[in-house]
Protein backbone atom coordinates (compact mmCIF):
# COMPACT_ATOMS: atom_id res chain seq x y z
CA UNK A 1 0.00 0.00 0.00
CA UNK A 2 1.25 3.47 -0.80
CA UNK A 3 1.58 5.60 2.29
CA UNK A 4 -0.82 8.55 2.36
CA UNK A 5 1.87 10.85 3.66
CA UNK A 6 5.58 10.36 3.33
CA UNK A 7 7.94 12.96 4.75
CA UNK A 8 11.61 12.19 4.31
CA UNK A 9 14.69 14.01 5.50
CA UNK A 10 12.82 17.22 6.21
CA UNK A 11 14.72 20.27 7.43
CA UNK A 12 13.09 23.56 8.29
CA UNK A 13 15.06 26.62 9.11
CA UNK A 14 13.97 30.20 9.75
CA UNK A 15 17.12 32.30 9.66
CA UNK A 16 19.48 30.32 11.88
CA UNK A 17 16.64 28.89 13.95
CA UNK A 18 16.30 25.22 13.02
CA UNK A 19 12.77 23.95 13.62
CA UNK A 20 13.01 20.46 12.09
CA UNK A 21 16.23 18.53 11.66
CA UNK A 22 16.11 15.50 9.38
CA UNK A 23 12.53 14.57 10.22
CA UNK A 24 10.82 11.47 8.79
CA UNK A 25 7.13 10.58 8.98
CA UNK A 26 5.05 7.97 7.18
CA UNK A 27 1.30 7.73 7.53
CA UNK A 28 -0.52 4.71 6.09
CA UNK A 29 -4.12 4.75 4.84
CA UNK A 30 -6.71 4.59 7.57
CA UNK A 31 -4.39 5.65 10.37
CA UNK A 32 -5.22 8.31 12.90
CA UNK A 33 -1.98 10.05 13.80
CA UNK A 34 -1.70 12.63 16.55
CA UNK A 35 1.11 15.10 16.47
CA UNK A 36 2.09 16.39 19.87
CA UNK A 37 4.90 18.57 21.06
CA UNK A 38 5.58 21.64 23.13
CA UNK A 39 4.41 25.05 22.04
CA UNK A 40 6.66 26.32 19.28
CA UNK A 41 8.06 22.87 18.49
CA UNK A 42 6.94 23.18 14.88
CA UNK A 43 3.69 21.20 14.67
CA UNK A 44 1.80 23.80 12.70
CA UNK A 45 4.82 24.39 10.49
CA UNK A 46 5.10 20.67 9.73
CA UNK A 47 1.42 20.50 8.89
CA UNK A 48 1.69 23.51 6.60
CA UNK A 49 4.56 21.84 4.82
CA UNK A 50 2.60 18.65 4.30
CA UNK A 51 -0.19 20.82 2.91
CA UNK A 52 2.23 22.48 0.51
CA UNK A 53 1.66 25.93 2.00
CA UNK A 54 5.28 26.23 2.98
CA UNK A 55 8.36 24.79 1.40
CA UNK A 56 10.80 22.89 3.58
CA UNK A 57 14.41 24.02 3.52
CA UNK A 58 15.40 20.50 2.57
CA UNK A 59 13.74 17.11 2.17
CA UNK A 60 10.71 15.75 0.35
CA UNK A 61 7.03 15.59 1.14
CA UNK A 62 4.81 13.14 -0.72
CA UNK A 63 1.05 12.96 -0.33
CA UNK A 64 -0.84 10.03 -1.91
CA UNK A 65 2.53 9.11 -3.37
CA UNK A 66 2.84 12.36 -5.27
CA UNK A 67 5.70 14.73 -4.40
CA UNK A 68 4.31 18.15 -3.49
CA UNK A 69 7.21 20.05 -4.94
CA UNK A 70 8.01 19.48 -8.55
CA UNK A 71 4.68 17.92 -9.59
CA UNK A 72 2.56 19.67 -12.17
CA UNK A 73 -0.35 21.87 -11.17
CA UNK A 74 -3.03 19.45 -12.38
CA UNK A 75 -1.75 16.65 -10.18
CA UNK A 76 -1.55 18.96 -7.19
CA UNK A 77 -5.10 20.11 -7.82
CA UNK A 78 -6.25 16.48 -7.65
CA UNK A 79 -4.52 16.02 -4.32
CA UNK A 80 -6.13 19.15 -2.94
CA UNK A 81 -9.59 17.76 -3.65
CA UNK A 82 -8.81 14.60 -1.73
CA UNK A 83 -7.90 16.22 1.56
CA UNK A 84 -9.75 18.41 4.00
CA UNK A 85 -8.15 20.82 6.41
CA UNK A 86 -9.35 22.28 9.68
CA UNK A 87 -7.19 25.28 10.50
CA UNK A 88 -6.30 26.28 14.03
CA UNK A 89 -8.51 29.38 13.82
CA UNK A 90 -11.16 27.86 11.56
CA UNK A 91 -10.39 30.17 8.62
CA UNK A 92 -14.00 30.50 7.55
CA UNK A 93 -14.48 33.02 4.75
CA UNK A 94 -15.73 36.03 6.64
CA UNK A 95 -17.63 37.46 3.69
CA UNK A 96 -19.73 34.30 3.22
CA UNK A 97 -22.52 32.92 5.38
CA UNK A 98 -22.16 29.60 7.16
CA UNK A 99 -24.17 27.93 4.41
CA UNK A 100 -22.09 29.41 1.60
CA UNK A 101 -18.86 28.56 3.39
CA UNK A 102 -19.75 24.88 3.40
CA UNK A 103 -21.28 25.00 -0.07
CA UNK A 104 -18.25 26.67 -1.63
CA UNK A 105 -16.12 23.54 -2.28
CA UNK A 106 -19.17 21.77 -3.74
CA UNK A 107 -20.09 24.68 -5.98
CA UNK A 108 -16.48 24.90 -7.10
CA UNK A 109 -16.78 21.39 -8.56
CA UNK A 110 -19.65 22.50 -10.82
CA UNK A 111 -20.99 18.96 -10.82
CA UNK A 112 -24.05 19.31 -8.61
CA UNK A 113 -27.20 21.40 -8.72
CA UNK A 114 -28.30 23.79 -5.96
CA UNK A 115 -30.90 21.38 -4.60
CA UNK A 116 -28.23 18.76 -4.08
CA UNK A 117 -25.83 21.25 -2.56
CA UNK A 118 -28.48 22.46 -0.12
CA UNK A 119 -29.22 18.97 1.16
CA UNK A 120 -25.53 18.16 1.39
CA UNK A 121 -24.78 21.29 3.40
CA UNK A 122 -27.67 20.63 5.77
CA UNK A 123 -26.49 17.07 6.19
CA UNK A 124 -22.99 18.22 7.09
CA UNK A 125 -24.40 20.77 9.52
CA UNK A 126 -26.33 17.95 11.18
CA UNK A 127 -23.20 15.86 11.36
CA UNK A 128 -21.25 18.52 13.23
CA UNK A 129 -24.23 19.27 15.42
CA UNK A 130 -25.01 22.81 14.25
CA UNK A 131 -28.66 23.77 14.19
CA UNK A 132 -30.04 24.80 10.84
CA UNK A 133 -31.12 28.21 12.01
CA UNK A 134 -27.44 29.16 12.16
CA UNK A 135 -26.96 28.46 8.46
CA UNK A 136 -27.65 32.05 7.39
CA UNK A 137 -25.33 33.61 9.99
CA UNK A 138 -22.02 35.23 9.15
CA UNK A 139 -18.83 33.80 10.71
CA UNK A 140 -18.32 36.98 12.75
CA UNK A 141 -21.56 36.25 14.59
CA UNK A 142 -20.53 32.77 15.72
CA UNK A 143 -18.91 31.53 18.88
CA UNK A 144 -15.41 30.08 18.74
CA UNK A 145 -16.63 26.52 19.17
CA UNK A 146 -19.23 26.91 16.43
CA UNK A 147 -16.57 28.24 14.06
CA UNK A 148 -14.53 25.11 14.73
CA UNK A 149 -17.42 22.80 13.99
CA UNK A 150 -18.49 24.65 10.86
CA UNK A 151 -14.92 24.68 9.63
CA UNK A 152 -14.90 20.94 10.19
CA UNK A 153 -18.09 20.59 8.16
CA UNK A 154 -16.43 22.54 5.38
CA UNK A 155 -13.35 20.34 5.58
CA UNK A 156 -15.49 17.22 5.30
CA UNK A 157 -17.90 18.32 2.60
CA UNK A 158 -15.94 16.84 -0.28
CA UNK A 159 -15.66 13.48 1.49
CA UNK A 160 -11.88 13.67 1.79
CA UNK A 161 -9.71 10.61 2.26
CA UNK A 162 -7.23 12.54 4.36
CA UNK A 163 -8.10 15.09 7.01
CA UNK A 164 -5.79 17.49 8.81
CA UNK A 165 -7.00 18.86 12.10
CA UNK A 166 -5.08 21.59 13.94
CA UNK A 167 -6.24 21.74 17.55
CA UNK A 168 -9.73 20.44 16.71
CA UNK A 169 -11.11 20.35 20.23
CA UNK A 170 -9.54 23.53 21.62
CA UNK A 171 -12.42 25.83 22.46
CA UNK A 172 -15.09 23.13 22.49
CA UNK A 173 -16.98 22.26 25.63
CA UNK A 174 -16.40 18.72 26.98
CA UNK A 175 -19.71 17.50 25.58
CA UNK A 176 -18.90 18.80 22.11
CA UNK A 177 -15.36 17.43 22.32
CA UNK A 178 -16.88 14.07 23.05
CA UNK A 179 -19.23 14.25 20.08
CA UNK A 180 -16.34 15.45 17.94
CA UNK A 181 -14.37 12.37 18.89
CA UNK A 182 -17.38 10.22 18.07
CA UNK A 183 -17.84 11.91 14.71
CA UNK A 184 -14.23 11.44 13.69
CA UNK A 185 -14.31 7.86 14.85
CA UNK A 186 -17.45 7.05 12.89
CA UNK A 187 -16.07 8.74 9.78
CA UNK A 188 -12.89 6.84 10.23
CA UNK A 189 -14.81 3.59 10.42
CA UNK A 190 -17.22 4.21 7.55
CA UNK A 191 -14.93 5.99 5.11
CA UNK A 192 -11.58 4.59 6.15
CA UNK A 193 -10.48 8.16 6.71
CA UNK A 194 -6.84 8.96 7.37
CA UNK A 195 -6.48 11.62 10.03
CA UNK A 196 -3.51 13.73 11.02
CA UNK A 197 -4.21 15.95 13.98
CA UNK A 198 -2.35 18.34 16.19
CA UNK A 199 -3.78 18.34 19.66
CA UNK A 200 -2.95 19.12 23.23
CA UNK A 201 -6.16 17.59 24.46
CA UNK A 202 -5.14 14.31 26.08
CA UNK A 203 -8.62 12.84 26.12
CA UNK A 204 -9.06 13.32 22.40
CA UNK A 205 -5.57 12.11 21.74
CA UNK A 206 -5.91 8.98 23.78
CA UNK A 207 -9.34 8.02 22.53
CA UNK A 208 -8.74 8.59 18.82
CA UNK A 209 -5.14 8.00 17.87
CA UNK A 210 -3.71 4.84 16.41
CA UNK A 211 -0.29 6.38 16.47
CA UNK A 212 1.33 9.25 18.28
CA UNK A 213 4.14 11.32 16.88
CA UNK A 214 6.02 13.29 19.49
CA UNK A 215 7.88 16.28 18.13
CA UNK A 216 10.74 17.45 20.32
CA UNK A 217 14.36 18.39 19.83
CA UNK A 218 13.61 19.19 16.19
CA UNK A 219 12.57 15.67 15.22
CA UNK A 220 10.11 12.91 16.04
CA UNK A 221 11.47 11.37 19.20
CA UNK A 222 8.72 8.72 19.12
CA UNK A 223 6.37 7.55 16.42
CA UNK A 224 4.21 4.69 17.53
CA UNK A 225 1.26 3.59 19.61
CA UNK A 226 0.37 5.21 22.89
CA UNK A 227 1.96 2.34 24.76
CA UNK A 228 5.22 2.74 22.86
CA UNK A 229 5.19 6.48 23.35
CA UNK A 230 4.72 6.27 27.10
CA UNK A 231 7.53 3.77 27.40
CA UNK A 232 10.07 6.35 26.21
CA UNK A 233 11.85 8.21 28.98
CA UNK A 234 12.02 11.75 27.75
CA UNK A 235 11.29 14.87 29.80
CA UNK A 236 8.55 16.04 27.43
CA UNK A 237 6.79 12.68 27.47
CA UNK A 238 7.11 12.40 31.21
CA UNK A 239 5.52 15.81 31.64
CA UNK A 240 2.92 15.39 28.96
CA UNK A 241 1.59 11.90 29.57
CA UNK A 242 2.77 11.06 33.04
CA UNK A 243 2.11 14.41 34.67
CA UNK A 244 -0.98 14.77 36.81
CA UNK A 245 -3.31 15.62 33.93
CA UNK A 246 -1.82 12.99 31.68
CA UNK A 247 -2.25 10.23 34.21
CA UNK A 248 -5.85 11.23 34.80
CA UNK A 249 -6.63 10.96 31.08
CA UNK A 250 -4.72 7.73 30.76
CA UNK A 251 -6.39 6.08 33.73
CA UNK A 252 -9.80 6.92 32.31
CA UNK A 253 -8.84 5.19 29.10
CA UNK A 254 -6.96 2.38 30.76
CA UNK A 255 -10.28 1.15 32.08
CA UNK A 256 -11.73 0.84 28.57
CA UNK A 257 -8.55 -0.73 27.23
CA UNK A 258 -8.75 -3.40 29.90
CA UNK A 259 -12.39 -4.03 29.08
CA UNK A 260 -11.54 -4.44 25.43
CA UNK A 261 -8.76 -6.81 26.40
CA UNK A 262 -11.25 -9.17 28.09
CA UNK A 263 -13.49 -9.42 25.04
Amino acid at each position, binding site marked *: *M*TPVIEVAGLWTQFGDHVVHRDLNLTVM*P*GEVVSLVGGSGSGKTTLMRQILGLERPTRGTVKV*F*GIPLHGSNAQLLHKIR*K*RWGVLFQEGAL*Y*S*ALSVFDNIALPLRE*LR*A*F*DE*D*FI*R*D*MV*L*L*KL*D*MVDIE*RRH*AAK*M*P*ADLSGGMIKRIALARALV*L*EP*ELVFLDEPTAGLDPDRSESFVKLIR*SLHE*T*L*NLTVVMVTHDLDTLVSLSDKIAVLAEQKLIVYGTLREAIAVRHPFILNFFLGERGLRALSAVAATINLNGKH
Partner: protein
Amino acid sequence: MQQAAAPAVLDPDVRQARTADGAPAVELSGAWDIRALETRARSLKLQLRQFSTDPGSHWNLSRIQRLDHIGALLIWQAWGKRRPARLALAQGHEVFFSHLDSAAAAAPAAPFDPLRLVRALGAALLLTAEHLRGIVQLLGQILLDSLVLLRHPLRGPWREISASLFRVGTQALGITALVGFLIGIVLSYLSAEQLKSVGANVFIINILGIGIIRELGPVIAAVLVAGRSGSAITAQLGVMRVTEELDALSVMGIPHTVRLILPKIVALAIAMPLLILWTSGIALTGGAISADMQLGISVHSFMTGLPAAVPAVNLSLAMGKGVVFGALIALIACHFGLRVQPNTESLGIGTTNSVVTSITAVIIADAIFAVIFADVGISLL
Protein backbone atom coordinates in the same frame (compact mmCIF):
# COMPACT_ATOMS: atom_id res chain seq x y z
CA MET B 1 -5.49 2.93 -3.50
CA GLN B 2 -7.28 2.09 -0.33
CA GLN B 3 -8.45 -1.26 -1.65
CA ALA B 4 -5.41 -2.30 -3.57
CA ALA B 5 -6.05 -5.98 -2.86
CA ALA B 6 -9.79 -5.86 -3.66
CA PRO B 7 -11.15 -6.30 -7.21
CA ALA B 8 -10.86 -3.24 -9.44
CA VAL B 9 -13.33 -0.52 -8.61
CA LEU B 10 -15.81 0.01 -11.45
CA ASP B 11 -17.52 3.11 -12.72
CA PRO B 12 -20.91 3.86 -11.20
CA ASP B 13 -23.70 2.19 -13.11
CA VAL B 14 -27.52 1.91 -12.97
CA ARG B 15 -29.29 -1.01 -14.60
CA GLN B 16 -32.77 -2.42 -14.88
CA ALA B 17 -32.84 -5.95 -13.50
CA ARG B 18 -35.17 -8.52 -12.01
CA THR B 19 -35.19 -9.98 -8.55
CA ALA B 20 -35.14 -13.71 -7.97
CA ASP B 21 -38.94 -13.83 -7.96
CA GLY B 22 -39.13 -11.89 -11.20
CA ALA B 23 -40.17 -8.51 -9.81
CA PRO B 24 -38.72 -5.39 -11.48
CA ALA B 25 -35.58 -4.14 -9.78
CA VAL B 26 -33.04 -1.36 -10.19
CA GLU B 27 -29.49 -2.42 -9.67
CA LEU B 28 -26.67 -0.03 -8.83
CA SER B 29 -23.04 -1.02 -8.95
CA GLY B 30 -19.53 0.34 -9.01
CA ALA B 31 -18.12 3.27 -7.05
CA TRP B 32 -20.63 5.89 -5.95
CA ASP B 33 -18.24 8.28 -4.28
CA ILE B 34 -17.22 11.81 -5.05
CA ARG B 35 -14.20 10.83 -7.08
CA ALA B 36 -16.37 8.87 -9.50
CA LEU B 37 -19.38 11.16 -9.43
CA GLU B 38 -17.57 14.44 -9.86
CA THR B 39 -17.74 14.16 -13.61
CA ARG B 40 -20.91 12.07 -14.01
CA ALA B 41 -23.31 13.45 -11.44
CA ARG B 42 -25.67 15.08 -13.91
CA SER B 43 -26.10 12.13 -16.25
CA LEU B 44 -26.46 9.64 -13.41
CA LYS B 45 -29.05 11.82 -11.79
CA LEU B 46 -31.13 11.76 -14.97
CA GLN B 47 -30.81 8.00 -15.22
CA LEU B 48 -31.84 7.53 -11.61
CA ARG B 49 -34.86 9.77 -12.16
CA GLN B 50 -36.08 7.56 -14.97
CA PHE B 51 -35.85 4.45 -12.86
CA SER B 52 -37.47 5.99 -9.84
CA THR B 53 -40.78 6.67 -11.57
CA ASP B 54 -42.04 3.25 -10.51
CA PRO B 55 -42.56 3.43 -6.74
CA GLY B 56 -42.93 -0.34 -6.34
CA SER B 57 -39.60 -1.36 -7.77
CA HIS B 58 -36.97 -3.06 -5.75
CA TRP B 59 -33.68 -1.19 -5.27
CA ASN B 60 -30.62 -3.34 -5.07
CA LEU B 61 -27.66 -1.31 -3.85
CA SER B 62 -25.72 -4.25 -2.50
CA ARG B 63 -23.31 -4.30 -5.41
CA ILE B 64 -22.09 -0.77 -4.82
CA GLN B 65 -18.41 -1.05 -4.14
CA ARG B 66 -17.79 2.34 -2.63
CA LEU B 67 -20.23 4.81 -1.24
CA ASP B 68 -19.98 8.13 0.53
CA HIS B 69 -22.44 10.83 1.56
CA ILE B 70 -22.31 12.44 -1.86
CA GLY B 71 -23.34 9.25 -3.63
CA ALA B 72 -25.94 8.44 -1.00
CA LEU B 73 -27.46 11.89 -1.30
CA LEU B 74 -27.64 11.64 -5.08
CA ILE B 75 -29.52 8.35 -4.87
CA TRP B 76 -31.72 9.53 -2.01
CA GLN B 77 -32.75 12.65 -3.92
CA ALA B 78 -33.74 10.51 -6.89
CA TRP B 79 -36.00 8.55 -4.56
CA GLY B 80 -37.83 11.79 -3.80
CA LYS B 81 -36.05 12.13 -0.44
CA ARG B 82 -37.72 9.02 0.92
CA ARG B 83 -36.38 5.54 1.30
CA PRO B 84 -38.12 3.07 -1.06
CA ALA B 85 -40.01 0.28 0.59
CA ARG B 86 -37.84 -2.45 -0.85
CA LEU B 87 -34.18 -1.72 -0.55
CA ALA B 88 -31.06 -3.85 -0.30
CA LEU B 89 -27.87 -2.25 0.95
CA ALA B 90 -24.33 -3.49 1.12
CA GLN B 91 -22.85 -4.05 4.52
CA GLY B 92 -21.78 -0.82 6.20
CA HIS B 93 -23.65 1.44 3.81
CA GLU B 94 -26.63 1.84 6.08
CA VAL B 95 -25.07 4.75 7.99
CA PHE B 96 -24.96 7.01 4.96
CA PHE B 97 -28.69 6.75 4.50
CA SER B 98 -29.58 6.97 8.14
CA HIS B 99 -27.84 10.37 8.25
CA LEU B 100 -29.91 11.49 5.32
CA ASP B 101 -33.34 10.57 6.58
CA SER B 102 -33.27 13.54 8.93
CA ALA B 103 -32.11 16.05 6.31
CA ALA B 104 -35.25 16.98 4.45
CA ALA B 105 -36.20 20.49 5.49
CA ALA B 106 -36.40 23.17 2.83
CA ALA B 107 -34.96 26.65 3.31
CA PRO B 108 -37.70 29.31 3.09
CA ALA B 109 -37.62 31.50 -0.04
CA ALA B 110 -37.19 35.25 0.30
CA PRO B 111 -40.65 36.89 0.38
CA PHE B 112 -41.58 39.27 -2.43
CA ASP B 113 -41.44 42.93 -1.40
CA PRO B 114 -43.14 45.44 -3.75
CA LEU B 115 -41.79 48.46 -1.82
CA ARG B 116 -38.21 47.31 -2.07
CA LEU B 117 -36.93 50.40 -3.91
CA VAL B 118 -38.69 52.85 -1.61
CA ARG B 119 -37.35 50.98 1.37
CA ALA B 120 -33.83 51.02 -0.07
CA LEU B 121 -34.02 54.80 -0.61
CA GLY B 122 -35.24 55.36 2.92
CA ALA B 123 -32.53 53.11 4.30
CA ALA B 124 -29.87 55.04 2.37
CA LEU B 125 -31.10 58.37 3.74
CA LEU B 126 -31.22 57.05 7.28
CA LEU B 127 -27.72 55.66 6.84
CA THR B 128 -26.42 59.06 5.76
CA ALA B 129 -28.02 60.69 8.78
CA GLU B 130 -26.51 58.01 10.98
CA HIS B 131 -23.04 58.61 9.52
CA LEU B 132 -23.38 62.35 10.15
CA ARG B 133 -24.43 61.74 13.71
CA GLY B 134 -21.62 59.25 14.17
CA ILE B 135 -19.00 61.71 12.95
CA VAL B 136 -20.32 64.47 15.21
CA GLN B 137 -20.35 62.06 18.13
CA LEU B 138 -16.80 60.97 17.42
CA LEU B 139 -15.67 64.57 17.25
CA GLY B 140 -17.38 65.31 20.56
CA GLN B 141 -15.83 62.26 22.18
CA ILE B 142 -12.38 63.29 21.02
CA LEU B 143 -12.83 66.83 22.34
CA LEU B 144 -13.95 65.48 25.72
CA ASP B 145 -11.05 63.04 25.89
CA SER B 146 -8.59 65.75 24.89
CA LEU B 147 -9.76 67.93 27.79
CA VAL B 148 -8.19 65.34 30.08
CA LEU B 149 -4.96 65.75 28.14
CA LEU B 150 -4.95 69.47 28.85
CA ARG B 151 -4.59 68.66 32.52
CA HIS B 152 -1.96 65.97 31.99
CA PRO B 153 -0.10 67.10 28.89
CA LEU B 154 2.75 64.66 29.47
CA ARG B 155 0.39 61.75 28.92
CA GLY B 156 -0.43 62.97 25.46
CA PRO B 157 0.17 60.67 22.51
CA TRP B 158 3.14 62.72 21.30
CA ARG B 159 5.02 59.77 19.93
CA GLU B 160 2.01 58.62 17.91
CA ILE B 161 1.48 62.14 16.59
CA SER B 162 5.06 62.37 15.44
CA ALA B 163 4.88 58.94 13.79
CA SER B 164 1.65 59.87 12.01
CA LEU B 165 3.12 63.16 10.94
CA PHE B 166 5.94 61.35 9.25
CA ARG B 167 3.60 58.89 7.56
CA VAL B 168 0.96 61.31 6.31
CA GLY B 169 3.26 64.28 5.74
CA THR B 170 6.85 63.48 4.92
CA GLN B 171 6.07 60.38 2.94
CA ALA B 172 3.50 62.25 0.84
CA LEU B 173 6.00 64.87 -0.37
CA GLY B 174 6.99 62.96 -3.48
CA ILE B 175 3.58 62.26 -4.93
CA THR B 176 2.17 65.73 -4.17
CA ALA B 177 5.21 67.33 -5.80
CA LEU B 178 4.87 65.25 -8.95
CA VAL B 179 1.15 65.90 -9.35
CA GLY B 180 1.48 69.59 -8.44
CA PHE B 181 4.27 70.13 -10.92
CA LEU B 182 2.37 68.53 -13.78
CA ILE B 183 -0.84 70.43 -13.01
CA GLY B 184 1.11 73.70 -12.88
CA ILE B 185 2.59 73.05 -16.30
CA VAL B 186 -0.71 72.03 -17.88
CA LEU B 187 -2.62 74.94 -16.40
CA SER B 188 0.03 77.43 -17.44
CA TYR B 189 0.19 76.02 -20.94
CA LEU B 190 -3.57 76.20 -21.48
CA SER B 191 -3.91 79.72 -20.04
CA ALA B 192 -0.94 80.98 -22.02
CA GLU B 193 -2.63 80.02 -25.29
CA GLN B 194 -5.69 82.10 -24.38
CA LEU B 195 -3.79 85.05 -22.95
CA LYS B 196 -1.48 85.27 -25.93
CA SER B 197 -4.45 85.71 -28.27
CA VAL B 198 -5.66 88.79 -26.38
CA GLY B 199 -2.20 90.10 -25.64
CA ALA B 200 -2.60 89.90 -21.85
CA ASN B 201 0.56 87.92 -21.23
CA VAL B 202 1.42 89.29 -17.76
CA PHE B 203 -1.90 88.15 -16.32
CA ILE B 204 -0.60 84.61 -16.33
CA ILE B 205 0.91 85.50 -12.95
CA ASN B 206 -2.50 86.50 -11.55
CA ILE B 207 -4.31 83.51 -12.98
CA LEU B 208 -1.82 80.93 -11.78
CA GLY B 209 -1.14 82.73 -8.50
CA ILE B 210 -4.75 83.02 -7.39
CA GLY B 211 -5.88 79.75 -8.99
CA ILE B 212 -3.18 77.57 -7.53
CA ILE B 213 -2.61 79.18 -4.16
CA ARG B 214 -6.25 79.73 -3.33
CA GLU B 215 -8.03 76.74 -4.88
CA LEU B 216 -6.07 74.13 -6.76
CA GLY B 217 -3.18 73.63 -4.36
CA PRO B 218 -5.37 72.91 -1.34
CA VAL B 219 -7.83 70.71 -3.25
CA ILE B 220 -5.21 68.66 -5.07
CA ALA B 221 -3.21 68.07 -1.93
CA ALA B 222 -6.38 67.15 -0.04
CA VAL B 223 -7.58 64.71 -2.69
CA LEU B 224 -4.17 63.02 -2.79
CA VAL B 225 -3.98 62.77 0.97
CA ALA B 226 -7.54 61.47 1.21
CA GLY B 227 -6.69 58.70 -1.23
CA ARG B 228 -3.35 57.95 0.33
CA SER B 229 -3.69 58.43 4.07
CA GLY B 230 -7.46 58.31 4.45
CA SER B 231 -7.65 54.81 3.03
CA ALA B 232 -4.67 53.70 5.12
CA ILE B 233 -6.25 55.00 8.33
CA THR B 234 -9.57 53.31 7.60
CA ALA B 235 -7.89 50.03 6.75
CA GLN B 236 -5.70 50.13 9.84
CA LEU B 237 -8.55 50.81 12.24
CA GLY B 238 -10.72 48.33 10.36
CA VAL B 239 -8.20 45.53 10.74
CA MET B 240 -7.78 46.40 14.40
CA ARG B 241 -11.53 46.04 14.77
CA VAL B 242 -11.50 42.71 12.93
CA THR B 243 -8.69 41.32 15.08
CA GLU B 244 -10.28 42.64 18.30
CA GLU B 245 -7.27 44.87 18.98
CA LEU B 246 -9.63 47.79 19.66
CA ASP B 247 -11.45 45.72 22.26
CA ALA B 248 -8.11 44.77 23.80
CA LEU B 249 -7.30 48.49 24.15
CA SER B 250 -10.67 49.22 25.74
CA VAL B 251 -10.39 46.50 28.35
CA MET B 252 -6.97 47.83 29.33
CA GLY B 253 -8.61 51.18 29.90
CA ILE B 254 -6.73 52.88 27.08
CA PRO B 255 -9.24 55.02 25.20
CA HIS B 256 -8.71 54.47 21.49
CA THR B 257 -9.86 58.01 20.77
CA VAL B 258 -6.77 59.42 22.45
CA ARG B 259 -4.30 56.74 21.41
CA LEU B 260 -5.37 56.16 17.83
CA ILE B 261 -7.70 58.80 16.51
CA LEU B 262 -6.48 62.02 18.07
CA PRO B 263 -2.90 61.60 16.83
CA LYS B 264 -4.15 61.07 13.30
CA ILE B 265 -6.39 64.12 13.35
CA VAL B 266 -3.67 66.31 14.86
CA ALA B 267 -1.06 64.98 12.47
CA LEU B 268 -3.21 65.58 9.42
CA ALA B 269 -4.27 69.01 10.64
CA ILE B 270 -0.59 69.95 10.92
CA ALA B 271 0.68 68.15 7.83
CA MET B 272 -2.07 69.23 5.46
CA PRO B 273 -1.31 73.02 5.45
CA LEU B 274 2.38 72.24 5.01
CA LEU B 275 1.65 69.85 2.17
CA ILE B 276 -0.56 72.50 0.56
CA LEU B 277 2.26 75.02 0.80
CA TRP B 278 4.60 72.52 -0.79
CA THR B 279 2.19 71.46 -3.54
CA SER B 280 1.31 75.05 -4.42
CA GLY B 281 4.97 76.04 -4.48
CA ILE B 282 5.89 73.23 -6.83
CA ALA B 283 2.83 73.84 -9.01
CA LEU B 284 3.76 77.51 -9.31
CA THR B 285 7.30 76.54 -10.24
CA GLY B 286 5.94 74.28 -12.95
CA GLY B 287 3.66 77.05 -14.13
CA ALA B 288 6.52 79.57 -14.17
CA ILE B 289 8.73 77.28 -16.22
CA SER B 290 5.95 76.71 -18.71
CA ALA B 291 5.19 80.48 -18.85
CA ASP B 292 8.85 81.15 -19.54
CA MET B 293 8.77 78.84 -22.53
CA GLN B 294 5.38 79.90 -23.86
CA LEU B 295 5.20 83.60 -23.13
CA GLY B 296 8.80 84.60 -22.50
CA ILE B 297 8.11 85.71 -18.93
CA SER B 298 11.25 84.75 -17.03
CA VAL B 299 10.91 82.61 -13.94
CA HIS B 300 12.51 85.42 -11.97
CA SER B 301 10.02 88.06 -13.02
CA PHE B 302 7.18 85.57 -12.49
CA MET B 303 8.23 85.07 -8.90
CA THR B 304 8.85 88.75 -8.19
CA GLY B 305 5.49 89.61 -9.71
CA LEU B 306 3.61 87.16 -7.49
CA PRO B 307 3.37 89.26 -4.29
CA ALA B 308 1.79 92.11 -6.21
CA ALA B 309 -0.67 89.85 -8.04
CA VAL B 310 -1.72 87.67 -5.11
CA PRO B 311 -2.54 89.32 -1.77
CA ALA B 312 -0.85 87.48 1.09
CA VAL B 313 -4.19 86.77 2.77
CA ASN B 314 -4.75 84.07 0.15
CA LEU B 315 -1.90 82.13 1.65
CA SER B 316 -3.47 82.29 5.10
CA LEU B 317 -6.77 81.24 3.60
CA ALA B 318 -5.06 78.23 2.00
CA MET B 319 -3.43 77.30 5.31
CA GLY B 320 -6.78 77.58 7.05
CA LYS B 321 -8.34 75.33 4.46
CA GLY B 322 -5.48 72.90 5.00
CA VAL B 323 -6.19 72.57 8.71
CA VAL B 324 -9.90 72.01 8.07
CA PHE B 325 -9.38 69.56 5.21
CA GLY B 326 -6.78 67.60 7.13
CA ALA B 327 -8.94 67.24 10.22
CA LEU B 328 -11.95 66.39 8.07
CA ILE B 329 -10.15 63.64 6.18
CA ALA B 330 -8.78 62.08 9.36
CA LEU B 331 -12.13 62.29 11.12
CA ILE B 332 -14.02 60.66 8.27
CA ALA B 333 -11.37 57.99 7.80
CA CYS B 334 -11.46 57.12 11.49
CA HIS B 335 -15.24 57.10 11.55
CA PHE B 336 -15.42 54.58 8.71
CA GLY B 337 -12.56 52.57 10.18
CA LEU B 338 -14.38 52.16 13.49
CA ARG B 339 -17.56 51.09 11.72
CA VAL B 340 -15.92 48.21 9.88
CA GLN B 341 -17.63 44.93 10.72
CA PRO B 342 -15.41 41.97 11.52
CA ASN B 343 -15.29 40.58 7.98
CA THR B 344 -13.15 41.16 4.95
CA GLU B 345 -15.94 42.42 2.68
CA SER B 346 -16.86 45.16 5.11
CA LEU B 347 -13.23 46.25 5.27
CA GLY B 348 -13.16 46.82 1.53
CA ILE B 349 -16.47 48.66 1.49
CA GLY B 350 -15.46 50.79 4.47
CA THR B 351 -12.21 51.86 2.82
CA THR B 352 -13.93 52.78 -0.43
CA ASN B 353 -16.65 54.72 1.36
CA SER B 354 -14.10 56.50 3.46
CA VAL B 355 -12.14 57.79 0.47
CA VAL B 356 -15.21 58.76 -1.54
CA THR B 357 -16.81 60.51 1.41
CA SER B 358 -13.72 62.41 2.44
CA ILE B 359 -13.06 63.68 -1.09
CA THR B 360 -16.68 64.79 -1.35
CA ALA B 361 -16.49 66.42 2.06
CA VAL B 362 -13.30 68.26 1.10
CA ILE B 363 -14.93 69.66 -2.02
CA ILE B 364 -18.05 70.70 -0.14
CA ALA B 365 -15.91 72.39 2.50
CA ASP B 366 -13.97 74.13 -0.25
CA ALA B 367 -17.22 75.49 -1.71
CA ILE B 368 -18.25 76.77 1.70
CA PHE B 369 -14.88 78.52 2.04
CA ALA B 370 -15.37 80.08 -1.38
CA VAL B 371 -18.75 81.51 -0.40
CA ILE B 372 -17.67 82.79 3.01
CA PHE B 373 -14.44 84.38 1.80
CA ALA B 374 -15.76 85.56 -1.54
CA ASP B 375 -14.54 89.14 -1.07
CA VAL B 376 -11.33 88.41 0.75
CA GLY B 377 -7.97 88.44 -0.96
CA ILE B 378 -9.04 89.03 -4.52
CA SER B 379 -7.45 92.28 -5.68
CA LEU B 380 -9.35 93.99 -8.45
CA LEU B 381 -7.26 96.06 -10.77
